[in-house]
């Protein structure tokens, strides 16, 4: 039987909330709920708190498992209507609940987390009671984990909106109650936001609203399901990148006035020795092959979307051997600028456009993997930082091209 809300203890107000979005997570939700409960009791024991499971009406018993877990903290279950799926829709439900509860601070953690500890709740939650309005996670990540973040989400948000948030689509984060109201009222909601686009949407809005942001050091990797960059990324890629491009249109007046970037505060030390992330296997031959397939599958779209010089450069790269493969950063920046403008000008359907970017993104990923395979995680970070400086240095070119197209 569908229930929009189950609130066994009839909680009407709460100062602090830990929320766990889910869809069919009966097998995994117990662990993050238990860790959240410990975190609340240890670090927020003096506050009226609640754990909320915001669910997509799962049919695997997620609700029953969640409500059946013994916790010291009261629990509330809320769900989207039957048939409505997506993390974004779960969080939209949550925003309303946060406003209703009049909560001051909210921490969101994924339901499939295996590496969460009570201190994650502390580190994502405490800054919200110390003048920060949005807390992004800073996990220890393998250099090949999070390639959409490394190649697109981080450099683009940093250069566009001027705030350095290393993992803007981390999935676990904290935000203040006031921001929940802003999220509910903003006019930028879309189908892509309703799903995987929600994380970048929330981070971008926090930046545009000039909300004080900090990054919480989590001290250990996020262990759930690391992905091979060569596989399994279609919907996530479309929704994250589509959301970024869509926000670029809406927030042009803001980002066109941003010059260079600024750092954010870092919160959360004293976690002891940092735990190293598990290795991520990358299939270089698949990345190489998918790039080559892109010429036959997407060549028509590339010619429509990309500048002639860029298409010529891609042809040059096509001739390279896999062992000497190199995709220059400035070319990647040009590709992203062209695609962002094509998205705005609707040169083809959204899915066609974003799908055609995937082979180029995979070739950029292959190049990154080859350039960083013999260096440490820290050195790979420096490589990404240098790429970000190039993104920022090209900002005036982006603005020029964006405006030229507008007046054309």
């Amino acid at each position, binding site marked *: 039987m569908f229930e929009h809300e189950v609130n066994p203890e009839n909680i009407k107000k709460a100062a602090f909330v830990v929320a766990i979005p889910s869809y069919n997570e009966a097998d995994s939700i117990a662990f993050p709920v238990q860790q959240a409960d410990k975190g609340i009791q240890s670090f927020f024991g003096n506050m009226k708190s609640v754990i909320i499971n915001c669910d997509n009406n799962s049919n695997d018993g997620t609700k029953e498992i969640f409500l059946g877990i013994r916790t010291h903290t009261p629990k509330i279950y809320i769900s989207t209507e039957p048939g409505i799926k997506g993390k974004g829709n779960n969080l939209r439900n949550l925003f309303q609940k946060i406003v209703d509860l009049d909560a001051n601070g909210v921490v969101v953690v994924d339901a499939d987390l295996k590496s969460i500890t009570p201190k994650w709740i502390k580190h994502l939650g405490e800054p919200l009671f*110390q003048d920060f309005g949005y807390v992004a996670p*800073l996990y220890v990540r393998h250099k090949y984990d999070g390639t959409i973040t490394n190649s697109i989400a981080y450099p683009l948000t940093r250069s566009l*909106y*001027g*705030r*350095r948030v*290393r993992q803007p689509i981390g999935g676990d984060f904290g935000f203040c109650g006031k921001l929940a109201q802003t999220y509910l009222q903003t006019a930028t909601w879309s189908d892509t936001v309703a799903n995987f686009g929600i994380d970048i949407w929330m981070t971008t809005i926090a*930046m*545009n*609203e*000039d909300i*004080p942001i900090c*990054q919480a*050091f989590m001290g250990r990797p996020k262990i759930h399901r690391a992905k091979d960059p060569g596989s399994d990324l279609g919907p996530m890629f479309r929704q994250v990148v589509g959301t970024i491009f869509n926000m670029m249109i809406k927030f042009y007046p*803001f980002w066109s*006035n*941003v*010059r*260079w*970037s*600024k*750092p*954010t*505060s*870092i919160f959360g*030390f004293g976690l002891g020795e940092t735990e190293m992330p598990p290795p991520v296997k990358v299939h270089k031959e698949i990345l190489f092959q998918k790039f080559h397939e892109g010429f036959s599958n997407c060549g028509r779209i590339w010619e429509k979307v990309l500048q002639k010089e860029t298409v010529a450069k891609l042809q040059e790269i096509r001739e390279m051997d896999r062992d000497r493969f190199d995709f220059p950063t400035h070319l990647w920046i040009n590709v992203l600028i062209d695609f962002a403008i094509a998205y705005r000008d609707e040169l083809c359907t959204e899915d066609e456009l974003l799908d055609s970017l995937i082979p180029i993104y995979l070739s950029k990923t292959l190049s990154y993997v080859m350039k960083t395979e013999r260096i440490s995680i*820290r050195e790979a970070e*420096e490589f990404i930082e240098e790429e970000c400086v190039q993104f920022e240095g090209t900002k005036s070119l982006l603005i020029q091209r964006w405006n030229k197209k507008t007046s054309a």
Partner: protein
Amino acid sequence: MAKILVVDDEEHIRLLYSEELSEAGYEVITAADGYKLTERIDSEKPDLVILDIKMIDYNGLDLLQEIRNKFYNLPVILCTAYDTFKDDIKSIAADFYVIKSFDLTELKKKIVMALEANIPSP
């Protein structure tokens, strides 16, 4: 004229930076350590801080943390003789870092970038 606070326990570095940055058109004030640094920033209101990482009684990365928490948007450039500080994640709260040198070209470039960085109000 932008005001720059140089925090370094080496006198010759404070002198060098004072002279060169004054010549470049900045107003320069100095501090020999991190004692009551945030109070000093509060009263002097510098536009930018150049911060040494290794001082005798103070860790520049801890001071950076204090500055960043109190003065969210104040540009801070870390100065160091060694780049091993990058092992400490706290260093990413700085706007930039430079390796100490008698040639201040890189530092001056970073100062310009840090002062130019702006994030408009919504």
